[in-house]
């Protein structure tokens, strides 16, 4: 029990509490809310943001930032659509190629950041412009995907009681989460990420492979962004270069609400799941609350961000003197 209630887990606990309160309040107020269908939809509708947020968690844990994820998602959606539609690739091959492209794109950013000691903010800002432009180069317009395999993917799902199916996209999200948890807590790479985020110079002095790890972190983020794009194509059955506009900030918000400190070193992948679920719950609010439109969604997300960050600030200050 002591492990769970350690001070550095406090942000995560608060996040969990907020989610329970938020979800509980909705369940009490709206009688159809507490159902398997709503929970399933929460996972399915936010799968792409969630997958991106998991990758971004590692970047932020290492003390970096990745602004390119929304554009990479857009690029991935049009690449999949074009490879299938124009070049008649099998969707499986197209998806594999797209994921590879995402990882290589991320690794390129990581290489620039690491080898030339450039600020991640600027490099990934350039990456964001580049990927968006490339997406428009690949296909200037929305492109429908018409392939039996791709349609079959959308129909896949784990049957749950009550006639609800836990769809393919949600399954991918859950798998990514589990893999993310495994990487963060049970692999050497994960420990290195935390070490770099805690103090990069200490990590270097300890002899950790900082350079390789940093490149891999951004490659992982690029891969997750591309996977988010693939999931998006399964859901939308199309690719559009306008997809994911501003999504990098949504994903960052979800990670921060999930209790990960933007200064690096502190946070959990599990928190990111909660962050995404809170974000998703706020997004579904307009379906239930009349008058709670998109402007209120943003104000609510902004307010939550503010509350969380001030809380984190307070906690980290409180914990400094005692260690």
């Amino acid at each position, binding site marked *: 029990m002591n492990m769970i209630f350690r001070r550095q887990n406090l942000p995560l606990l608060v996040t969990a509490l907020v989610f329970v309160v938020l979800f509980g309040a909705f369940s009490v107020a709206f009688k159809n809310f507490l159902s398997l269908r709503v929970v399933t939809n929460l996972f399915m509708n936010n799968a792409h943001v969630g997958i991106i947020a998991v990758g971004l968690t590692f970047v932020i844990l290492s003390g970096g930032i990745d602004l390119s994820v929304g554009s990479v998602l857009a690029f991935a959606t049009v690449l999949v659509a074009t490879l299938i539609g124009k070049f008649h690739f099998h969707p499986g091959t197209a998806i594999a190629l797209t994921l590879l492209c995402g990882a290589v794109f991320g690794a390129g950013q990581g290489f620039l950041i690491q080898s030339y000691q450039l600020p991640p903010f600027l490099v990934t800002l350039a990456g964001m412009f*580049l990927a968006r432009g490339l997406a428009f180069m690949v296909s200037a317009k929305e492109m429908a995907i018409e392939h039996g395999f791709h349609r079959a993917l959308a129909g896949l799902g784990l049957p749950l009681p009550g006639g609800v199916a836990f769809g393919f996209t949600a399954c991918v999200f859950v798998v990514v989460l589990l893999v993310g948890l495994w990487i963060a807590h049970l692999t050497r790479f994960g420990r290195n990420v935390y070490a770099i985020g805690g103090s990069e110079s200490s990590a270097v002095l300890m002899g950790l492979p900082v350079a390789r790890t940093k490149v891999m972190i951004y490659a992982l983020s690029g891969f997750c962004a591309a996977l988010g794009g693939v999931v998006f194509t399964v859901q939308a059955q199309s690719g559009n270069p306008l997809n994911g506009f501003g999504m990098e900030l949504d994903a960052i918000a979800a990670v921060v609400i999930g209790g990960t400190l933007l200064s690096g070193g502190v946070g959990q992948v599990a928190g990111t799941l909660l962050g995404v679920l809170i974000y998703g719950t706020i997004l579904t609010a307009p379906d239930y609350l009349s008058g709670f439109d998109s*402007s209120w969604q943003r104000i609510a*997300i*902004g307010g939550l961000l503010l509350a969380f960050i001030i809380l984190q*600030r307070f906690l980290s200050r409180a914990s400094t003197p005692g260690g």
Partner: protein
Amino acid sequence: MTKEDSTPTRPRVFAALRSFFIRHPSLQRLIWPLAGLGLLVLFNLMFDRAFFEITTRDGNLYGPVMTILRLAVKVMLLAIGMTLVIAAGGVDLSVGSVMAVAGALVAYLSTQGDWPFAALLGVAVLVALVAGAFNGTLVAFAGLQPIVATLIMMVLGRGLALSITGGLPISVQDPGLEFLGRGFVAGIPAPILLVVAVVVITGIACRMTALGLFIEAVGDNENASRMSGVNARGIKLFAYVFCALCAALAGLVTVGDVGRVEPDRLGQMLELDAITAVVVGGTVLTGGRFSLVGSIVGALLIQTLTVTLIRQGMPSDVAPVPKALVIIAVCLLQSPRLRAQLAAWRSGVRRVGA
């Protein structure tokens, strides 16, 4: 790059240039952006003469060059404020949202009754003061990271802008705003004159007083500046408020120019364009020395590049690609490690040649 084929006069020219830039260190950071801009002008001189055609209609100036200037007005205004924030060691992601809030509120009020232009201006200033104070307080007094604090304002501000107009676009018809966005003074577009005025005023305030020095001191080393008696927190607060003022002004110009407000689109992603302009202009993202003129040149460079490429047949949607390449090139030029590598490579070449 070899020295053998250079005529004897060239080294002398280079030496003169070099000593000029050594004597004027503040101009040093302008070399690359100016060189880039010069290259683009040269390219257009050679391949696209129509680029420089300036026509007068009713005594007012029009033409591609004027279009570039007008298109760059928003980013230039934002970049002026952003320069001070970045110089003070911060960054402001909320400028686009502040534009939207100021624009939406002013547009809404102007449809609600007979507000005089001065009152509308006052409202915009008020919006900027609140937003800037919010950012500045969170950064300077609560100690939040600038990216986080201004990200909150960015999300909140966009929501506020949407709720002001009820999520719908609003048309604006106010002669004052229209003049600000589309008017002419002695043939020159009013928004361009506005940018010039803001640059001159900011430049005088920063360079004729100690303000600029204080900002650079805070951005260079906040603790050291505080210990030498600079009110570091006050300076940071000022930078964010000033940046928000520039953003509100940019919002008004845009609303006046377009004649309507789309609260979800107005100013979106412009924060990143402004940061790009500042960085291209030679102000380093980690704070310290800054160059207002550099930021203006940076904004013009990116806009000129985009317009040039579009005139050469590039689809406008692909415009982010050259922007990305410029950012990466500028980053690499500033990277100490690449410079060391190049220096090592060059001395290696020289040794082999000798």
